[in-house]
């Protein structure tokens, strides 16, 4: 409710350029519309925002074609509920450049920037409220790192991805856990971590956390951000440049990120923990000048900048669909513990099978599975921990484990799909076998073919 005057910028990505999600995302299927649990990815975010009474959205999509697709979807799905404006920007722009580009559209005092691939149940309104309450320049949403225990069985994750360092952030918070003192993604930090002493000196105490991730949801104070973006053309990326810049700047002005404590401790706290110091002012009282200087130094002009962090309470779900591995995991989670995000009705078998789906004899769909509208399955199929889209035609004796099968996919008899993603309109011919593969849209996997850890896509599609 307090978020009413917030504008929200959703960075929905584009189509095709995202290397991380190749070959899933194409010109015809922008990232925002990637099916997750048989629903377009962006719908989750829009619903999350809606739950916080945020109805004014500015969805930024890279490339015009993709923008049209996204707009079509949103206007058909949410036309009666939300005011959504879809804007297209050139594909190669980095996030901060995108903000510059749309800067003229921002009018509210504060605005939220959120990555369109966020899947979460954290109330966005709480972040906005904290931002307002603290009068912060930026407030970042942080949440606990999803434990990676399930990574081995995850869909579509090839071992290449697993050898990559897990995406993690290095985040510095002060003792109140509310002020952001450091933010870097671990990929941008070398062997050594450098922390400014001045920062420590002012904050006194800083906890460097690696068990938190930046959810890529930021609340910004418009005036400050616009000014910074205008004066600092070097800032290209929100996370890599803009937020660290603001963090630095809040200290550059010599202000204390923990001003409350600095002021009150100088005064007359009741004696407790560290308050032995309170005996000390007697020492420095000798000159009024000294104490006034001390006062000045300790509490000076409240900085216009304050960088805050909203740390989501543990147990909240937060994931970003920005890698193949994450895509697989999110689909698995959506069909499992996060089913509540989808608002589907769960059957007694603990799965979601559309009423129009047809299944042959002895075909089993295990728990934590989804089968979309109008999909047909032959006899003796086995589906485990997988999401099958709409109108798929699946032959007999097909095994689908730990995988995502999108819409209109044809799978012939005796195929086996493990830990893979099969995009729409793909065709798997008889006895083909996939493990840790991604099959692009409309790709045909020949009969008796066996693939492992491969991304299969039509040439002309992947060339973008």
């Amino acid at each position, binding site marked *: 409710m307090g978020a009413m005057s917030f504008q929200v910028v959703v960075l929905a990505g584009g189509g095709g350029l995202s290397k991380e999600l190749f070959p899933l995302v194409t010109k015809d299927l922008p990232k925002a519309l990637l099916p997750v649990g048989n629903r377009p990815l962006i719908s989750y975010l829009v619903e999350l925002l809606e739950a916080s009474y945020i109805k004014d959205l500015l969805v930024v999509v890279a490339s015009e074609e993709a923008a049209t697709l996204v707009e079509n979807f949103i206007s058909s799905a949410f036309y009666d509920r939300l005011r959504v404006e879809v804007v297209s920007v050139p594909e190669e722009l980095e996030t901060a450049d995108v903000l510059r580009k749309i800067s003229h559209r921002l009018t509210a005092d504060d605005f939220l920037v959120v990555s369109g691939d966020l899947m979460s149940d954290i109330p966005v309104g709480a972040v906005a409220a904290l931002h307002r309450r603290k009068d912060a320049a930026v407030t970042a949403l942080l949440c606990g790192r999803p434990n990676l225990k399930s990574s081995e069985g995850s869909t579509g994750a090839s071992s290449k991805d697993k050898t990559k360092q897990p995406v993690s952030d290095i985040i*510095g918070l002060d003792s109140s856990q509310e002020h952001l003192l450091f933010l870097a993604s671990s990929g941008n930090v070398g062997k*050594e971590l450098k922390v400014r*002493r001045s920062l420590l000196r*002012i904050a006194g105490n800083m906890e460097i956390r690696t068990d938190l991730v930046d959810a890529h949801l930021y609340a910004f104070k418009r005036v400050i951000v616009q000014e910074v973006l205008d004066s600092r053309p*070097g800032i290209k990326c929100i996370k890599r*440049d803009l937020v660290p810049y603001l963090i630095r700047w809040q200290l550059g002005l010599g202000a204390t990120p923990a001003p409350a404590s600095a002021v009150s401790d100088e005064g007359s706290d009741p004696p407790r923990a*560290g308050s032995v110091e309170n005996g000390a002012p007697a020492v420095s009282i000798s*000159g009024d000048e000294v104490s006034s200087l001390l006062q000045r130094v300790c509490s000076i002009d409240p900085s216009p900048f304050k960088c805050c962090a909203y740390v989501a309470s543990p147990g909240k779900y937060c994931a970003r669909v920005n890698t193949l591995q994450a895509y697989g995991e999110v689909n698995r989670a959506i069909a499992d513990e996060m089913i509540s995000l989808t608002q589907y009705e769960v059957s007694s078998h603990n799965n979601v099978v559309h009423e129009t789906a047809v299944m042959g004899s002895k075909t089993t769909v295990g728990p934590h599975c989804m089968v979309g509208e109008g999909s047909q399955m032959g006899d003796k199929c086995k589906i485990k921990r997988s999401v099958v889209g709409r109108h798929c035609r699946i032959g007999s004796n097909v095994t689908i484990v730990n995988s995502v099968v999108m819409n209109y996919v044809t799978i012939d008899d005796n195929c086996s799909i493990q830990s893979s993603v099969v995009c729409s309109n793909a065709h798997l011919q008889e006895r083909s076998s996939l493990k840790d593969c991604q099959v692009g849209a409309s790709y045909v996997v020949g009969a008796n073919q066996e693939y492992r850890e491969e991304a299969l896509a039509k040439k002309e599609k992947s060339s973008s």
Partner: protein
Amino acid sequence: MAAEKVYHNKGGAIHVDIACDVDLVRLALSLTSLPVLDLIKRTKKLMADVVLSVTVPHTLPLNEQICYHLATAGIGPALNKLNDRSHASGPEEYLGQAVLLADSFAQQFRPITDERPKVLLPLVNVPMIDYTLEWLASAGVEEVFVFCCAHAKQVTSHLEHSRWTSQSNFTVTPIESRDCVSAGDALRVIDQRGVVRGDFILISGDTVSNMSLKEVLKEHQERRKKDKLAVMTMVYRRCKPHPLIYQTRLGSEQLLLVVDPSTKQLLHYDSMKEAGGRESTKQQTLARQVVLERSLLADRPAVQLCSDVQDCYIDICSPEVLLLFTDNFDYQHLRRDFVRGLLSDEILGNKIHTYEIIGDYAARIDNLRAYDVVSKDIIHRWTYPMVPDIRFASPETGIKIGRSNIYKEDGLVLAPTTIIGPSTVVGSGTSISDNTIIRNSVIGRGCTIGSNVVIEGSHIWNNVTICDNVQIRHAVVCDGVNLKARAIIQPGVVLSFKVVIGEDFTVPAYSKISLVLQRHEEENSDEELEYAEAASGVAGSAPSPLYDGMNGSQADDGEETPQSPRWDPLQVGLGGAGCKWSTGQDDEWRHSVAPIPPEKIKEIVAREEEAELEDAARDMTTSSRKDNVEEQPDDDDDEDADEEDDSLFFDKEVEALFSRAVTGESSAENVVLEVDGLKLAYDRSFSDCAGAMFRALLNLAAQGPQTTSRELVQNTKQVLLQWGPLLRRFLKHQDDEMEVLLVFEEVCTEDRKEYAPVFASVLQELYDKDVISEEAIIAWASEKQHGDESDKIFVKQCERFIQWLQEASEEDDEGGEEA
């Protein structure tokens, strides 16, 4: 016992165990009606050829155990004392030992400490060591080993006359050693003595605290049970984060602890002092940055960086700590060497943990500012029960506490017009005359203070004579000082024992004046050594030649100091006595008792802000530079530049070495050694050395008289003939030879283009002189095969030569096969 004896005779046992069970001992006693020692003696007599194992019953109080220990030691050499450690460190009966270092191995309190050890300096009229001992006694420590080094005699005699000797369940054992120069040495001595049997508390004699040790000991011991490597627990206390407050507080440098918040393990210990003070800009920026190993974060969800802490120098140590000191004989300083060493040592994996005290007080007095601050804390009763009105150290006269922390000891003579301001302590036997004002100060016992005197924020010790109209602000005035009328003592001044300040004289701020002459020749030696030497010089019975001229100037002699004509009236005024010590430091203000002058604070603030701006500017340049090099970690650019610098420097150095060999200043043998040294220093490989060497060689050849390329080749040939073998010594491997060729190419295209046309000829020369093998040349050529056209210029030039080589080698191969 009797039974055992029988068994021994029968079975010929080689060990006889006198049981550690009290009952058994009692039984033995009742059986034999002999004292235990006698028992042992008799047994020994009976079984002279047998090694006796005597376990001192640890159920006895510790001091008795020690007695037995010592006594049994005297019985015979073949007697093996065993004090079963595993039994002795049981939780109930063993509350703890402490090692108290009655020497700070530092010199912040000079010149006072030249005459009296720091631990005996009065802190609110009580020697510092008594605060420490009182705290240990009340915290349940049973046995304290007081390690004395400088002024050992004074410390031991103080202990002998103190009440600690007569207190039950608390023993204070002095350990003397003269030749220790650091805390590390002290601990090594203690290890040698073998008196420490379990976990112990390591503190220095200048610690004032009222913290309870029970909990930290318990934590330490429980951790030890789980993890044998958790050898030490360090106590720290929170304080305010701002630098100004640090300095106004204890004058210590800013400290940074990195702690794992879940296990409390210490991961990094960093004090600003060591990082700062270097010149190059890189170092300066480093000084403004804390560099943490990324690996610290590797398997931890979080680490805590605390800069708002103060190290109390109270450590709970396991016996292993002593062993570590013995093993690493270069450990001197507890923090700088030991803690750092332990943290960086990954092989042994010893761990240090931390303990934060909450609510309790603990502080170490390691400089004059800390002295001042702690004094005030005592007066303000933060250290309760160690406060002036509770006479813990010695049964003394009563003391009355008035409002706003005014303490007046009995036996004061105060003129009615005297004004005693807040936060002031006045000792007994002191008389104060009319219209004198005293505020925020500590006045010792037996002082005589005239009229119209102003004393503010100062520490006046015992038996000080202050004449009329003297003004003292924020100064330390030691025992027996005589301030003549109208003298003015400015802030930050230290007047050591028995100094006399003449009439109307003004002692300028931050002066230190002592009757002991400063010894300048020691100025350059190690700081830790300095104090010890100076100290033992004074403590020694025979005064060193330096003191001959001023006989009796030592505090111990107790004589009135004769007026010496040698005192400079410019330093102490007419009729004064004492000489000024120069410290050679301009940051006296940092550690003096005087409050930091406002202009200094302004300076600090300004410097801070400047640094801040600089940093911001630098950050901006790097981040704008980042546009070009996307996704690069922040400071990569800097490092690259550095590396380039380094390699340039390395090349230069090698060339310099080489030219020395050429001019005959150095032998080839030496050059090899020195280049090897450089290689290690710059962390280079042999191929780097070879490359640099070759570069030098080419430069040398090109310097010779040459007009045509033929002459250049001739020169090079000459040089190669002479120095080729030297170069050869760095070519350990084919890769090194390749490197030489690559360097050669680089030289031809960049520094010395004159070589370009003669590349092939020189290459042939290199081959002929056995500097470069044919394999290397062929490998080089084949590597270039796939390069750009521009890369292949030189390969092309040598095409024929290479072809010839290849054919030759093929022939060789064939020949080999045929054979």
